C-alpha cells in the first residue's frame, strides 16, 4: 500500500495543522522537481507555493480546514524548485491526530480551459452591464416622453379653457351686436319686419330702419365681406355712423357717400385689414308714396306691386370701400299701398334655388306680412338644416309692406 501511494498518479502529502510538510510521495516530489523528499520534509508548504498561493492558503485553506475539516477542489498554483508554476487542484482533510492529508492533481490543460471560461463570463457580465446601461437610457427617454405628454395634456387643458372663454366672449359679443339692431316697425302706413341669422356667433350683416319724420323712413341693409369677428367689428362701426346719419334725415346719397368715405379712411393705412361692403339704402316717403334708393353692389331688392308685379332694384353703384370718389345718385320709384319690398343679403339668396324668393313673395301675396316672413324664414331654416353648405354665410332679410 505504501508503495502504491508513492507511485500513485497524483500528488500526496501530509501537513501539520499549521502547514509544515510531514510526508510527501514520489510523484509530488518529481512534480516539484526536487531531487528527493528530504529537502521538503519539515519545511512549510509555502516553499512549494507561489506568492499569491501563499496568501490564498492563509486566507482560505487553513481557515476552511480548521472550521470544516476538509477542503475540496481548491485551485492553487505550485512553484517548482526551478521556479515554474503548475496549476493544481487540491483536496484535503484534517485527521483526528491534527494532521492534514492532501491529494494534489495537476491541471495544466484544464487551467487554460478555465481561463477561457472566466473570460467568457467576464464578457457576458460586460454585455449585461451594457444592456443595463441601455435600459437605463431607455428609462430616461421614457420619463422624458411621459413628461412631454403631461405638458401636452396641460396645454390641451389650457386650450380647452381658452376655447370656453372665447366662446363665452363671443356669445356676449353676439348679444351686443344684436342690441344694435332696430326693432320691427308696424303702423298704419308701413310695416317693416326683419330676420337676422349669423353663420357663426357674430355676423357680417347689419341693418337699421328708422322713422325720420312722421312720413319718412330710412331703411338700410349692409353685408360686410367675410364673416366672423373682423366683419362684425366693421358692421358695428358702420352701424354707429349710419344710425346718426339716417336719424338726422340727410339725403340718401350723403348717407351712402359718408359710409363709403368712412371705409376708405378706415383702411387707408392698413391694406391688410381692408374690408368692403355691399349696401342698399331706401328712403321711403309715405306721403308722396315714393321710394328713393341706392344699391351699392348689393343683391337686387325685390319690389312687388300690390297686384303681384315684381321689379328688381338692381345695383346703382359698386360696393362701398372699393373705388374712391364715386358719385352716388339715388333712383326713385313710386308705389301704391299694398306694395311689398324684400331686401336680403347674398347668404339668403344663395341658400335658395334661383327665383325662390320671387316665388315665395308672389305666392304669399294674400297672406299677412308676418306670415310671409315666417314662410321665408322656415324655407331658409329647412335648407340650413339640410346642408351645412347653406348655413355657411350670414343671412339677413328685411320685409316691408307699404
Amino acid at each position, binding site marked *: 500500500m505504501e508503495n502504491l501511494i508513492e507511485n500513485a498518479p497524483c500528488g500526496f502529502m501530509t501537513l501539520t*495543522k*499549521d*502547514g509544515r510538510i510531514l510526508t510527501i510521495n514520489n510523484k509530488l516530489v518529481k512534480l516539484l522537481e526536487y531531487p528527493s523528499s528530504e529537502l521538503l520534509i519539515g519545511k*512549510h508548504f*509555502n516553499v512549494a507555493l*507561489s*506568492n*499569491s*498561493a*501563499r*496568501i*490564498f492558503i*492563509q*486566507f*482560505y485553506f*487553513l*481557515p*476552511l480546514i*480548521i*472550521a*470544516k475539516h476538509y477542503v475540496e*477542489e*481548491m*485551485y*492553487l*498554483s505550485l512553484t517548482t524548485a526551478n521556479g515554474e508554476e503548475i496549476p493544481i487542484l487540491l483536496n484535503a482533510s484534517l485527521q483526528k491526530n491534527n494532521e492534514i492529508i492532501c491529494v494534489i492533481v495537476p491541471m495544466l490543460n484544464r*487551467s487554460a480551459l*478555465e481561463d477561457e*471560461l*472566466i473570460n467568457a*463570463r467576464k464578457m*457576458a*457580465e460586460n454585455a*449585461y452591464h451594457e444592456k443595463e446601461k441601455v435600459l437605463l437610457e431607455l428609462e430616461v427617454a421614457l420619463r422624458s416622453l411621459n413628461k412631454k405628454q403631461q405638458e401636452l395634456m396641460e396645454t390641451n387643458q389650457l386650450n380647452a379653457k381658452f376655447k370656453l372663454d372665447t366662446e363665452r366672449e363671443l356669445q356676449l359679443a353676439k348679444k351686443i351686436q344684436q342690441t344694435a339692431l332696430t326693432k320691427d316697425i308696424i303702423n298704419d302706413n308701413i310695416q317693416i319686419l326683419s330676420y337676422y341669422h349669423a353663420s357663426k356667433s357674430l355676423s357680417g350683416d347689419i341693418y337699421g330702419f328708422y322713422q325720420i319724420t312722421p312720413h319718412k323712413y330710412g331703411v338700410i341693409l349692409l353685408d360686410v365681406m367675410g364673416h366672423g369677428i373682423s366683419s362684425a367689428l366693421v358692421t358695428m362701426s358702420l352701424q354707429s355712423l349710419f344710425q346718426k346719419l339716417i336719424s338726422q334725415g340727410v339725403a340718401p346719397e350723403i348717407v351712402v357717400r359718408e359710409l363709403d368715405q368712412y371705409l376708405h379712411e378706415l383702411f387707408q393705412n392698413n391694406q391688410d385689414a381692408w374690408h368692403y361692403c355691399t349696401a342698399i339704402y331706401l328712403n321711403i316717403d309715405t306721403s308722396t308714396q315714393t321710394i328713393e334708393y341706392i344699391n351699392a353692389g348689393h343683391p337686387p331688392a325685390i319690389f312687388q306691386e300690390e297686384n303681384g308685379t315684381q321689379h328688381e332694384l338692381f345695383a346703382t353703384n359698386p360696393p362701398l370701400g372699393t373705388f374712391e370718389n364715386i358719385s352716388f345718385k339715388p333712383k326713385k320709384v313710386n308705389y301704391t299701398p299694398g306694395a311689398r319690398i324684400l331686401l336680403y343679403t347674398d347668404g339668403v339668396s344663395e341658400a335658395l334655388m334661383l327665383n325662390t324668393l320671387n316665388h315665395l313673395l308672389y305666392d304669399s301675396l294674400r297672406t299677412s306680412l308676418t306670415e310671409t316672413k315666417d314662410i321665408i324664414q322656415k324655407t331658409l331654416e329647412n335648407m340650413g338644416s339640410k346642408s351645412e353648405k347653406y348655413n355657411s354665410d350670414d343671412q339677413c332679410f328685411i320685409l316691408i309692406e307699404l
Partner: protein
Amino acid sequence: MNQNTIKRNNINISGKGKKAIIFAPGFGCDQTVWKDVSPAFEEEYQVILFDYVGIGSSDLSAFDPVKYSKLSGYVQDVLDVCAALDLKEAIFVGHSVSSMIGLLASISKPNYFSHLIMIGPSPCYLNDPPGYYGGFEKEDLVNLIDMMEKNYIGWANSFSITLLNNIERAEVAKNLENRFCSTDPLIATTFAKACFFTDNRRDIVKVKVPSLILQCTDDIIAPNVVGEYLKMNMPNSRITYMNAIGHCPHMSDPEETIQSIKNYLTNQTETLVGEGVGGV
C-alpha cells in the same frame, strides 16, 4: 437601535458584561471564525459579532459595488454597526484587514472605541522599496485575484449572483449552504481589490485610541517587519509576539489569542488605576 443595520450586517450580541467588544472578521470570512475566541469574553463583556455586507449571512442585496470597492465602504459598515447599537468606548478586535478597517473607523469616530486589538495587521501589503517591505509585489496580488476567480468556477458557474435581481439572488443564496469564507466572486474580488491595493501608512499616525498588535510567528501576509513598522508609527501602541504560526491565530491557536487579548486589557485597566484615572 437601527433594525436595518442589525439585519443588513447580521449583528449578533451575547455576553453578560456592560463594556462592548466587537469582533471583526478578516478578509472574505464571516463571523463564525470567532467561534473559539469570542465565548471567552462573554462573562465580562457584551460580545458583538457582525458580517460585512456581501459576506456570510449579511443582506447581499445591500451590496453596492461602488461603495465596497474602497476600504471606506467597509469602514462605514463598522461605523453603522456602532451607531446602530449606540456604542461608546468599545473594544475593537479586528483580524487582518479588519484591523485597518477598525483603525480608520476610530480615526473618524474616536468616541466609539476605547482600544484596538489588531491581529496580523498590515498598513500596506505592497513593497515600497527602499523604505518599506510589505511582503508582496503587485503581480502576486493580481495572481491572487485570478486564483480566487478560478476557485469560484465550481459553484458560481456563469454570472456572479450580485448581477441577478433580488428574487433570483435570494434563491441562489439559499443554495449556498456553506458560505463560510466563500462569497460571491464579484463581492470577494471587490473586497480583495479594496484591501490589497490600499496604502494606509499615512493614516496609522493619526490614530488616537490605544492599540495592541498581535504579531504571529512566520506570518507571510503580515511579517514581523510590518508589525514592527506599525508599533513604531502608531501612537500609544503595543506589540505582543505570539507563538502561533501563520496568519489566523484566532483559529489555529484560540487559547493563546484569548490570553494575549486579556493580558493586554487587564494591563490597560491596571495602568489606568495606577494613574488615578479610575478603574472599570
